[in-house]
């Protein structure tokens, strides 16, 4: 077999589509099987423009003339499939143009699939991010940020001692009577409105809301960051809670009053629970504040172990009476009203 014959056999056998094109007439002078299959059948002498209708012949001629080469892509129809072929035209030393074609259909199909998959994954990632933000917001609503950061990093929270702080314990007057008379939605809406306002006021006075239990609202001043004037800040917040309820009563159908118990002392803060997490504070100051609030008249504050010289002139001390004991330990109490 001659070299020419071997070459021709090789050209016919390779997987790429190969054709030789006359540079003047742009007619096919030779093609292999693969090339022919893409077009059902190709006869020698067939015009390139008939086979590849979308091919820009003028650009092809110009590129071959100037650079000796031109690359393009064509989509061919074969039965139900669309075949995408990468075409490469090269001027040969024989004067003919060598047309090489690679079937890149599967590459394009896979690219499309990856595109779809990426879009799905990106969408899922965005949803997970949104969900993460919701969870973070929820956790931050039940625990201080530094506690949340510790929980996020280590999965557990080490109980932390805060000393001293001032605990605020507030209850609404005649809540049980109102709860009986009001519809559930009205009651919840009222409580929500009042406690949301307490949160806003508390924030201005460095008070961290710890929890609400029914009509009871518990916050701590001096946690998680210690502050020197925690008692004064707690009194400032308590005075404004009372003023807020007074003003609210003027513009709302329903009038609410509160009793406030304040107590300075140490507390321990920690997350408790396994399935249901609750951030809570424990210690004598918490119990004393709770007990003292029930000693307060409506719209009054009863404080325990407060540094009175810290308190400032926003409140008037009605009486100082060491009449309360936490177990066997006497508690210095005082009855305060907003000045």
């Amino acid at each position, binding site marked *: 077999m001659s070299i020419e014959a071997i070459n021709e056999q090789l050209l016919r056998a390779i997987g790429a589509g190969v054709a030789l094109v006359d540079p003047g007439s742009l007619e096919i002078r030779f093609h292999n099987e693969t090339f022919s299959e893409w077009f059902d059948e190709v006869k020698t002498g067939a015009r390139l423009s008939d086979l590849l209708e979308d091919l820009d012949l003028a650009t092809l001629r110009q590129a071959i003339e100037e650079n000796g080469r031109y690359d393009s892509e064509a989509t061919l129809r074969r039965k139900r499939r669309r075949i995408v072929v990468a075409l490469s035209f090269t001027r040969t030393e024989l004067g003919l143009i060598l047309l090489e074609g690679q079937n890149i259909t599967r590459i394009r199909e*896979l690219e499309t*699939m990856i595109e779809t*998959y990426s879009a799905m994954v990106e969408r899922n990632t965005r949803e997970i991010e949104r969900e993460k933000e919701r969870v973070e917001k929820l956790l931050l609503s039940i625990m201080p940020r530094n506690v949340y950061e510790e929980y996020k990093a280590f999965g557990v929270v080490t109980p932390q001692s805060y000393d001293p702080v001032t605990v605020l314990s507030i209850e609404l007057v005649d809540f049980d009577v109102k709860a009986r008379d009001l519809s559930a939605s009205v009651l919840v809406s009222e409580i929500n409105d009042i406690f949301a306002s307490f949160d806003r006021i508390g924030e201005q006075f460095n008070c961290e809301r710890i929890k609400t239990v029914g009509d009871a609202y518990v916050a701590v001043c001096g946690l998680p960051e210690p502050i020197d004037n925690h008692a004064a800040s707690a009194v400032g917040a308590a005075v404004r809670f009372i003023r807020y309820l007074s003003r609210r009563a003027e513009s709302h159908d329903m009038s609410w009053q509160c009793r406030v118990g304040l107590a300075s002392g140490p507390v321990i803060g920690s997350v408790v629970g396994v399935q249901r997490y609750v951030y809570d504070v424990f210690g004598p100051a918490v119990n004393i504040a709770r007990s003292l609030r029930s000693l307060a008249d409506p719209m009054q504050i009863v404080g325990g172990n407060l540094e009175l010289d810290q308190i400032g002139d926003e409140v008037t001390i009605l009486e100082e009476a060491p009449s309360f004991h936490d177990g066997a330990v006497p508690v210095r109490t005082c009855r305060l009203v907003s000045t």
Partner: protein
Amino acid sequence: MSQTLYDKYGGFASVSRIVMEFYDRILDSESVGDYFENADMKRLIDHQTKFIAYLLGGPADYTGDRLEQLHAHLKIKGADFDEMKEILEGTLSDHGVEEADCAAVMAEVEARRGLIVNPG
């Protein structure tokens, strides 16, 4: 959290092969291939990637409404739906999906017959 079939069978790396094979077999099918005669390749692959991922519990969000909307104009007959099911079952099986999992997927497909079949 329980493992999805999508994860069990190797995630996108494996599912992509199932999608391509299913795509090829559907186009080659004498009975259902005609439905895809003029279908745009991009749309068809996009649709099948989402559909298979969705059936296997992967990252896809395909609602019943969307399925119905995509197939309404094709006027698909019940027998063709059966053929499509058979092709899918064969593809899954040939890619190593266990019989019980195959049956679970096919039950999911069957549950959507009403959204896809619409002889007009």
